[in-house]
Structures are given as C-alpha cells and as structure tokens.
C-alpha cells in the first residue's frame, strides 16, 4: 500500500503544471524573511531567552521610541517555515454553504436591523421621553395587543403612578379591535397610601365586545348547526356561535391583609349589560350568530339586558413562594393557595337578576427540584344558585380557554356549576423560559350536588412560559383534548392568579 502511495505521489509530481504533491498552503500569516542570524530590530545584545530587563513595565512605561526598532505585531513568531495546510475540502464546503449563509443573513436581517435601530436610536429611552415625564411617573402612550382568536387590539393608555406621593395610581385606557370593538376604562388605586395591609381600587369601564362566544348550556357535544333555534336550558346541544355584548361597570375593590398569608378581598360592582347578535363580519366561517342557533327568549337577560349590583367577599390563604432566591420570583415553587368566595347579585331598575355565587380554589405547589421543577395541583369549583331565569346567561360559570380547561375553546362549556381539576408540571429551560405540560379535567353541572366523574372533559398539552426575574410575560401553548382538535393559545394573564369575577376578564 505504501508502495502504491509512493508511485501515485511520484506520478503526480511528474504531472505537467503541478508544482508540488503537497497541498497548497493556505494564506496563513507569512513567515518572516529567512535571514539566519539576523537580529530583530530593537533587541539588545543576544542572550538565550532574554526578556526585557525593565522592572515594572506597565504599558505606559514603554514609549514609542523605546519600541521603535521592534517588529510589528504578528511578525514575531520567528517561524521561517510553517506547517503546510490544505483547505480544498473546506473551500468546497464553503462554496456549498454560501446559499445557506445568504439565507441566514436575509432571514436575520430584520431582527438584526431592529436590534441595531433599537440601540442606535435608543428607542426605549426615546419612547419614555416622548410618552412619559422625566421621572417616569406620568405617561400617555399607544398600546397594542394580539389575542388569539380575536385579532389585533390597539389604543392608548394614560398612567399616573404617583398621584399624591404614596404610589397612588390612575390608569385610563381606550382601545379598539380584537375582543373589544371599543374599550374605555379608568382605574384609581390607593397604592401605599393605606399602608401595606390595605389597598383600595375604584374602576369604571365601558366595553363593546362584538364577538363573544356561546356554545349553549351544559356538557353537550358540538354540532355544526341546528335546523332551528333551540332552548339551551332544555337542550345541551353545543353550536359555536358569537354574540355581541355591551358592558358598563363601576367597581370598588378593597384588598385587606388580615394576618400573615391570610387576606380578604371585598368588592362591589354596578353592572349594566346589553346583548345582541353579532355582526356578520365578526362571525368566523363555520360559526353562527347566536340568535340563529339559540332561542334568545330563553336566555335570561339577552333580549332586555340587565342592570345589577354584585357584591362579593373572598378569603385567601396564600403561602405560595419560591423555594430560594435563585428561582424566579414570578414562579412559585412551594406552598398553597386556598381561596373561597361568596357573592350576591341584585337587580336594579326592575331588572330580574338575583342570584348567589360561591366557590373555592385550591392550588398546591410541590417543589420537585431546584431551578425550579414544580408540580402544581389544582381543584376549582364554582356555582351560582337562584332561579334560572334570574341568572344572566353570561354570568353562568364557564370552562374552556387558555386559563380553565385548556384544550377547549374559550367559554366552551357553561352551566350553573363547574368542577375542574388540573395537574401541571413546569420546569425551567433557562431563567427566562420554562416548559410545562398539563392535564385539565372538568365538567359543568346543573349543580355541585350533581358532580360525578362521568363524561368528564379532559384537555392536555404543553407549552412555554416566558418570564423575567420580576415579571410574568406570557405563555404559548399547544393544547388538545379527548374530543380532538388542536388549539394554539397565546395568553398574557397569569393562569394561577385567583379568578377575578368583579374585574374585567
């Protein structure tokens, strides 16, 4: 074999026009001119391995004159002959990969350009200087939001974060599009004015929601359409429909820290709701207008609307916390949340609304490992009690969506009661991103007394959660269910915050 190789090399050497059998050296730094015994300029009398005899030689103690005769950087290797190198295969590879590199540059160009623009023109600082005052406490700025299934919502916000010197805040908002055709809200908070143990909020809001969902009442399976409008209380058939809602609300909420992890929330709201069918442009294909599928006369408050007062008391025991300072503040990894609430709705101005609502939420956080790895177990029940036609259909407890019973569409199931259990395993990939998988199982019922394990709806899936050390940013998830389908959810609401019934959802 060695002889064959030698002969092959010999033949190559003899080939016309070929200088050497060795690969052409790559353009490495050229060795210095070969002059044996030449002293490099600036060197003192030669002694083996002599180093400059200066004592402390910081850079500033060398001068231009003292190094004037020294060689340039990169010309000091002393190499008169370097190792031969062959880069033919690399050259071939480089040529083949040029298109891939070009594609990379094209794809990344907007992101790189955006990053450069962001820093070059200090967009964040300019944003603040344009839309906020010098101390950053007062701002008027545009805002935009994309909600899956609802589209783009744009508007403007005003915020004053320190009204009277104790972080009292005033927030005002106006936006259009997406879930809300129009949304106007104002919110006033006491901040630290009442101390650490108490906070009070007042808020007012007007919303036009052009495409809320309604799938009937009960645990029925979904069908494409019905021949004629059905009574949802008599027939649990589910049809995907949309309806329009106008909501005006004035609410007062008081949060009180009672002792340690025990707190209370007392709230009251004046609500006015009006309903109608959706506009054709707001109804997705394969869905119907609510009045086409359901008898609106059998839906309490649909035809006439309702005005009522809702008061609620909630008690919370919340020991959730992170296990160590090396875990993000936004991801509790131990402790529990136990919350119970009861509320009363009373009609105003002749409205027939009259019901009682109550429920409980239990969340257990089991720390499985550092960073963290957490198993979150949850049980949630809710019921409204009263005469059926005195409970506005929109106030019925609901399941389905990115927060409750994931894997199903928003508000897929509603009835007088629901029960839900959930198990979620979440683990960090980096301190900014966590991955999670979940199983949610639940059902709506005519009452909590009817709770049974039959015909449970089960959703499952997983996703990624984004957070900083101090802020929850959002979740992206893929979810499915035992009834099929695949849903992508993008949500910015913390899923395990206690469900707010008085505030805007």
């Amino acid at each position: 074999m060695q002889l064959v190789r030698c002969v092959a090399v010999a033949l190559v050497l003899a080939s016309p026009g070929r200088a050497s059998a060795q690969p052409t050296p790559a353009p490495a730094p050229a060795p210095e001119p070969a002059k044996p015994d030449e002293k490099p300029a600036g060197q003192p009398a030669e002694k083996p391995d002599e180093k400059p005899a200066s004592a402390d030689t910081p850079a500033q103690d060398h001068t231009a004159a003292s190094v004037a005769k020294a060689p340039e950087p990169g010309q000091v290797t002393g190499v008169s002959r370097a190792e031969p190198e062959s880069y033919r295969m690399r050259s071939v590879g480089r040529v083949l990969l040029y298109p891939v590199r070009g594609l990379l540059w094209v794809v990344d160009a907007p992101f790189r350009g955006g990053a450069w623009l962001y820093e070059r023109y200090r967009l964040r600082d300019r944003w603040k200087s344009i839309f906020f005052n010098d101390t950053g406490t007062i701002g008027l700025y545009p805002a935009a939001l994309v909600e899956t299934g609802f589209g783009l919502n744009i508007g403007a916000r005003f915020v004053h974060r320190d009204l009277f010197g104790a972080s009292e805040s005033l927030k005002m908002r106006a936006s259009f599009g997406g879930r809300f055709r129009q949304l106007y809200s104002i919110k006033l908070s006491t901040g630290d004015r009442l101390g650490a143990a108490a906070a009070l909020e007042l808020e007012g809001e007007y919303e036009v929601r052009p495409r809320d969902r309604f799938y009937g009442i009960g645990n029925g399976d979904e069908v494409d359409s019905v021949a004629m409008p059905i009574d949802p209380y008599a027939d649990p058939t589910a049809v995907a429909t949309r309806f329009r809602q106008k909501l005006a609300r004035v609410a007062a909420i008081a949060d009180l820290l009672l002792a340690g992890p025990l707190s209370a929330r007392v709230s009251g709201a004046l609500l006015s709701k009006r309903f109608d069918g959706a506009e054709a442009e707001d109804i997705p294909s394969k869905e119907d207008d609510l009045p086409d599928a359901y008898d609106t006369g059998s839906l309490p408050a649909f035809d006439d609307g309702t005005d009522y007062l809702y008061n609620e008391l909630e008690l919370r025991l919340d020991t959730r916390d992170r296990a160590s300072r090396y875990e993000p503040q936004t991801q509790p990894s131990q402790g529990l949340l136990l919350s119970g609430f009861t509320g009363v709705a009373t009609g105003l101005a002749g409205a027939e609304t009259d019901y009682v609502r109550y429920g409980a939420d239990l969340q257990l956080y089991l720390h499985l490992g550092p960073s963290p790895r957490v198993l979150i177990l949850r049980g949630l029940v809710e019921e409204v009690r009263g005469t059926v036609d005195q409970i506005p259909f929109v106030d019925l407890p609901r399941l389905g969506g990115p927060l409750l019973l994931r894997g199903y569409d928003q508000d897929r199931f509603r009835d007088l009661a629901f029960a839900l259990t959930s198990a979620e395993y979440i683990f960090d990939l980096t301190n900014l991103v966590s991955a999670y998988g979940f199983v949610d199982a639940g059902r709506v019922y005519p009452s909590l007394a009817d709770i049974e394990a039959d015909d449970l709806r089960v959703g499952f899936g997983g996703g990624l959660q984004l957070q900083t050390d101090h802020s929850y940013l959002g979740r992206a998830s893929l979810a499915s269910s035992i009834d099929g389908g695949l849903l992508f959810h993008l949500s910015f609401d913390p899923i395990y915050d206690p469900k707010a019934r008085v505030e805007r959802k």
Partner: protein
Amino acid sequence: MRSLFLLVALMTAAGCAGASRSPVGETRFHNRAPVWVVNDRRDVPVKPEERKFFKALYHLDGFWHKRIDRALELRVPRRAANVNALDEVPDSTWFTNRIGVREMTPEEIARGPNTTGSPEDHRPWTIKSSKVGGKTVGFIIKDKRGVKYVLKFDEAGIPEVETAADVILQRLVWACGYNVPEDYVVNFKRSDLVLADDAVIKDPMGNEKPMTEAFLDQQLATINVGPDGTIRGLASQFIPGIPIGGHDRDGVRPDDPNDKVPHQLMRELRGQYAIYSWLDQSDAKEDNSLDTWVEDPADKSVHYVVHYMLDFGKGLGAQPFINGRRFVGHAYLVDFRDIGLSLVTLGAWRRPWEGRRDPGLVGVGLLDSEPYDPARWKPYSPSYFPFLDADRFDNFWGAKILIRFTRDQIAAAVAQGRFSDRRAAAYVTEMLVERQRKTARHWFKQVNPLDRFEVQAEGGGSFTLCFDDLAVKYNLEDSLVRPTSYAARVFDHAGRATGFVARVTGELTGRSCIRHLPPAAGADAYTIIEVRTSRPGLAVPPTLVHVARDPTGAPRVIGLRRL
C-alpha cells in the same frame, strides 16, 4: 528504456520521501533570539473613530447570527498568530509580561496599577455629573486634587460584593499582564459629596439638566448606607487618553494601523479564557474593554491606541449571586445545549450547577470550587469570540500565568476588597487557590506541561536541555505517587532522526535536565529535540524544542513548537 526506468525510480523515491512525514513536522525557526516586545506604538495622527456598542445586536449576533455564520464559514482552527518563537506573548499596548517574568511581592500586587493614591484620602469630592449607561446609580466625580473618577456602588441590599470583586480582579488581572484602570474601594459620608455649580444629570440620549441636592439624596437613598452614615463605593479613575470604545471581538480596528492581528487570533485575548474562568469573571464582552487614544509619554506629538480591560464587578460569583442565577459560570444565559437536554428529559436532567450554595458571608457572591469545571466554564454570553476560538495552547498559556500566584499574593489582592467580615477574605482566598489549582491541573493535562527551556553547552560540543515540569513544580502532581520520566529524541533541520534517544527520571523539584544531547549536523547546528513526558494519567503529544548556535557558538533555544 533504462533512462525511463531510472527516472521513474527517482520520482518514486521522491514521492516516498514526500509521503512519509517527519514526526517533528515542517515548522522551522529563524536562528535568532525570541522577540519580547513589539512596536504597536507607531504614530496614529488621526484619532480612530469611536466604536459604538450596541448591546442587543451584539448579543443577538453572539447567541445566534454570527455564531451560526462563523460555523457555516468552516473557519480553519488557527493557533494564535501573535506569539513569539517560544509561544509567549510579547509586550505590547495590549499586554505586559509581569508575574512570573519578574518577582512580584504581595505588596506590589496589593498596590496593582494604582499609583496616584485613593481618592478617599483626598475628600471632599465634587460631583460633575451622573453616570451614563448601566442600570445602577453612579456619578462622575473629581477628588480634591482634581483627579477624575467614576463612582459606583453595590446593589442595594447586597453590600460589598461587586465593589470587592472589582478591585480584587483588577489587581489580579493587572498582575497577569493586562492594562486595567486604577480602582479603589472607598468609604465616605454624604458630607464628602459636593455638587459642582455646573453638575448635570445626563440621560442616555445626551440630554443634560442641572443636578440638584434633592436628586443626589434621592439617588443615595437607593444604595447601601451604613448605620453611621458610611457609604461604600468603587472609585474607578478615568483612563488616560481619549476613549474610543471597546475592541471588536472579530477582526481589527480598521483605522488603527498598529492593530495588525485579528483579535480572535490574539493569544492574550484567547488565553484570557483560562484566567477569567479561574476568577469566574463571567461578564466578558466588548464594553468591558476600552481602547484609548493616548499621547506618547515621551513624545507628545506621537499618538497611538492602548487597550484596557475593565469592569470586574461581576466576577468572583457576583453575577450569579446578584441576579439569582446559579447557572452563571456553567451555562450561557440562553444555552441551547442545556435547553435541549432539559427539554428532551422533561426536566429530569440534573444540571451540574444545581447544587451550588453561596457561603452566606457578607461581601461574597456565589463563589465555589467543587462544581467548577475549567473545561466547561462558560461566561454569561457566548458573544466574546476569542473565548470560542481559544485552543488548548491558549489556555495552557493562561494557566501558566495564573498558577504563578502564590497564596500570599492572592491574599494580598483579596485584602483590597476591604471585607467587613474577615471570614469573607479567607473564604475568597481559599476558593481562588482551589480554583487556581483546578484550572492549572486541567490545562496542564491538555498540553505537555513543560516550560522554561534552557540549554547549556557541555564540553565536546554536546549540550544539556533543562526545563520545568509545571505540574510537578506547582505540586499539582505528586511525583512520588505518579513518577514522571522524560524521553528525548534528536532530529536535524531536515527532520531526520539522528538516532540519539534518552530517557530521564523527573526531579521532584519539577526542574529536570537531559544531558549530553548531540547537536545535529548542518548550518548553525540546527537541532530539534522532541521531549515527551510520561506520567500515569497524562497522554499528551510531545514538545519540540528547536536549538541552534548563536553568533558566539553557544547553543540557544530559538523556537518551541507545542503539539
């Protein structure tokens, strides 16, 4: 026919000669003394343009775009291009050989580059402006002598950690050979701060407005203040010259004609990986360096660029401690490998940093030695490309430097942190010593750990070659448990073996010699000695020592080729 046969036979022989490769390779050196200083102080009459640092783009490129693009370029792994014939770095505007080249007392290391004296001894201080950039409170001040500083503070609620880390690393990095600013831990009172009449608040867009006492008090309310009103800070003296931004991680500064060697090929930048891993200086990036265009101290008509490293406050475990991120030093902020492993194992994979515990001492971050792996240490971000390009020879060079520090020298640097808790100083010193030895032990197993080669003539023309075995010299290997021997073979200039072989047992001191080496025949008696180290647990290629006669006829080492 006969002629043709002869021709073919000759060409076959030539081919065979070309096909068989000498074990000493092709590299040869000029017969001259190695260069120990370079001239990168040629006049640069026009100030180079200031480099702007765009953090988001820098890290987007570092984590993603340029990292992938570099991989797709199929770059040839190259050894450092600016080393001398002995694989060492000459003095330049980037680096000055210090520790190990000459004796340095602990007092000298404690003093470091600080020659002008602490501003603490020259109060009150006049505040000129707020600090621009960074997230924390800071001011530009002048002391009573008019010397200008940046005054910075520890994170609120986390006293001493950053300020101590900064001055300790500043002393050690300077002693390693890098240019650093003069940094001081200072203690002062509110009354030592005086607003200049023209003191201003500067925002990142360059807008200025007058600074008031109320603003100053508001800023000081957000930092740590002792019960007696003492405030601790870090005063970093302004670097001489006109700042022109940090150095690029790739390529050269195009308008600096003295910047000849691409930065990713510079030994002193690549070898910094080993040094920074020792010190857990995880915040390596362009804007933690600074180039300044300076006047030559001897000739003010001459200007050139000098290169500094700065901002060491995130070292010694400060960054993971302050940010609550245990992974720092073990994984990047976004580490695709770790993400992939965690995802595939659904979080079951236990990452090596998960068991880390901070010592619970005031002033000390998450600094440890047991989980530390010098081979796998990672800075916070992969954006600093010299670290990605560093090879084992670069890290061997860095390890040679860091192992030279004695415990007393390290302790002297640590003492500059002025810890309020004496246990903190002892702990930091101990961790640095343990990490030092771990780092050196690792890199001394990646390259034949022989250094400081010297030759001495013997009678009759032969010579003795002596060298240090760094692993033995610094007691990283127990020579009694792991006996060492060295084998030498001699080659001539053409790479042909002369037939001389020798084997010697290593000395317990770490300095061993191979005697009676015959010079090869040929011009200047150019001789290549292959020295191979045998020790249980060590499997590294040999080192090639190139020797030739100097003009006086004495043998000298003219080149070193580490394999």
